[in-house]
């Protein structure tokens, strides 16, 4: 059976005054029905642009330069704006890091949620408002009926994110793209929102693309993980396997550089030297090569493609790290 979402060889570029940014450069991934796929990587590696390519909500100058995006077997690349509008919100919805950017500050919450409902469903204004109160209740908003008349600025960050989730779920999409849904929130509120997303996902049997830079959030919430680096997927694996036996040096180095609460803090952290490459002139070889302590001559000559012993666990590296060898012996000096 085909997956719910299948992305194949996606290239999303952004034209700028001088040249263009190759934000997403040949990404292939899939999400099964009801599954949570984690997409993790550092700032600028192309996570948001991957998600926004599915929604086809790209920034000015942004365009899909190649590849295919199939939702439930239907090709989305090349659809007209009108056709995409039917897909958005209905079959696939998105929530962002900062709810304020996607909430209308001049409209009350009831009007905003019910407007979304009425675009996709033939219902009366009254029915749409009832639905709005129902979804607000679903996302744990206290006194949902009364809140319908509130404006976004009257709510705390956590409550606003609940409103965003309510809006996204009002038409019961099959796929939710959650782009750093909790990054702007305090940890205690983050936990509430992550638990909420998880219980809603179970209840609505929805698939989630969970985009985050936080390996901790991935560890607890994703079924499978795609690790991105500089516009490419460098490793993909089931979550437990990725954390236990990662093969890509970037994944290993990233995990070794995170301070952990449960770890004795006197041990020095690994630190990855240097910076990611400029995506307007990406190298034709391994993009992690200048920062990689395992790099050999070949890494500067060819681009490593995704391979692996099993289709479930794939990595793009000529010198994959072995199980347990992730912790480099001494922290690199700067």
């Amino acid at each position, binding site marked *: 059976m085909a997956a719910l979402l299948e992305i194949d060889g996606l290239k999303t570029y952004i034209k700028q005054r001088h040249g263009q940014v190759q934000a997403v450069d040949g990404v292939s991934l899939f999400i099964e029905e009801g599954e949570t796929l984690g997409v993790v990587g*550092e*700032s600028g590696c192309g996570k948001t642009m991957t998600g926004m390519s599915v929604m086809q909500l790209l920034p000015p100058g942004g365009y899909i330069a190649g590849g295919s995006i199939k939702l439930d077997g239907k090709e989305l690349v090349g659809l007209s704006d009108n056709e995409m509008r039917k897909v958005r919100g209905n079959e696939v919805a998105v929530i962002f890091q900062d709810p304020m950017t996607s909430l209308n500050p001049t409209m009350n919450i009831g009007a905003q949620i019910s407007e979304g409902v009425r675009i996709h469903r033939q219902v009366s204004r009254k029915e749409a408002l009832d639905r709005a109160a129902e979804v607000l209740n679903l996302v744990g908003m206290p006194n949902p009926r009364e809140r319908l008349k509130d404006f976004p600025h009257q709510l*705390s960050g*956590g*409550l606003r994110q609940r409103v965003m989730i309510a809006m996204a779920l009002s038409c019961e999409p099959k796929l939710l793209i959650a782009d750093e849904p909790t990054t702007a929130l*305090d*940890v*205690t*509120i*983050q*936990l*509430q929102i*992550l*638990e909420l997303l998880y219980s809603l996902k179970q209840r609505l049997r929805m698939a989630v693309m969970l985009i985050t*830079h*936080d*390996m*901790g*959030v*991935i*560890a*607890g*919430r994703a079924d499978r993980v795609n690790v991105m680096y500089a516009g490419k997927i460098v490793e993909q694996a089931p*979550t*437990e396997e990725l*954390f236990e036996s990662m093969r890509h040096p970037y994944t290993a*180095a*990233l*995990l070794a*550089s*995170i*301070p*952990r*609460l*449960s770890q*004795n*803090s006197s041990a*020095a*952290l*690994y*630190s*990855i*030297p240097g*910076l990611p490459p400029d995506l307007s002139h990406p190298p034709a070889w391994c993009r992690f090569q200048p*920062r990689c302590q395992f790099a050999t001559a070949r890494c500067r000559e060819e681009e490593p493609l995704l391979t692996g012993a099993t289709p479930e666990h794939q990595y793009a590296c000529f010198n994959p790290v072995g199980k347990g060898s992730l912790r480099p012996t001494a*922290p690199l000096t*700067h």
Partner: protein
Amino acid sequence: MTTATPLSAAEEASQPSTAFLELRHLVKEFPVTAGAVMQRKIGTVKAVSDVSLSVAKGETFGLVGESGCGKTTIGRLIVGLEKPTSGQIWFEGSDIARLRGREFRRRRRDLQLMFQDPYASLDPRMHVGNIIREPLTVQKIGNRQEQDSRVRQLLQEVGLSPKAIDLYPHEFSGGQRQRIGLARALTLNPKLIVADEPVSALDVSIRSQIMNLMNGLQETHGLTYIVISHDLSVVKYLSDRVGVMYLGKLVEVAPSQDIYDHPAHPYTQGLINAIPEPDPKRERSKNLQPIMGELPSAMHPPSGCRFRTRCPRAQEICAEEEPPLRAFGPRHIAACHFPLQTPIATA
């Protein structure tokens, strides 16, 4: 801290402190105003509400807590960017909250602030060399040549090339800008650096570069750090001791490993539970009990214990009486009526 004869509150307040840095009953209130044109005062926020703590020379003290709990305000009070509403800030034997004029400016050199994102706080039209040099120019220290060599030396110490001198802040990455911020904080050879969210704006792979750099500089310069962050893992990694704040109050202080191993305050425990760790087995076996509800308004904090509206252990007395700080170990204090462990004595 045991004294043979306990001092009365008034006596204690009049004694000079022998600690390297000691905050005594520190309070900072801000007026809250409303209306766009006619600003009228509608109340006050106690951003810092009776906080006392002391920090030893060479120590790293971490302050952690959720947004608005008063961390930044404490940092700004320590470096003299704000004046306390009441209370004292003893630094090497003088109450710097009461210093004025030249004496104040001289003491301030020893206490520097490292900003969250130096890009947002530094003049984007200034060359990096001048940004680092500025404190020297302002304080009229050294001639041009001496200043130049100091700038070069500082750049080298924070791992930047001398080419940086003639570049602008926007030509640097976030991690490099944080290095510039560190260099500038170090220019006047301070004794203490308050680092407010030093790595929050940075990517994971860059964070550890900066944290390791901070640790290295602490050793070479004999620095004392106050590290402020909303991220307990960062604070725990960098600090010897950690203070947990909630709505303007210090609710628990302990050596950083003890804070994690044996928290006494339910808020600290909730905070620890809420932090996702990069370990699937651990995360999935966690029996999570999220801290309920939202942060109450800082203008109208709850009566008694400020955490009681979200606390799983709260009982009637929590609304009636403010819990005092009690000792749970040699350097471990917490303020809770129903702590997670038995206190050893009254602090």
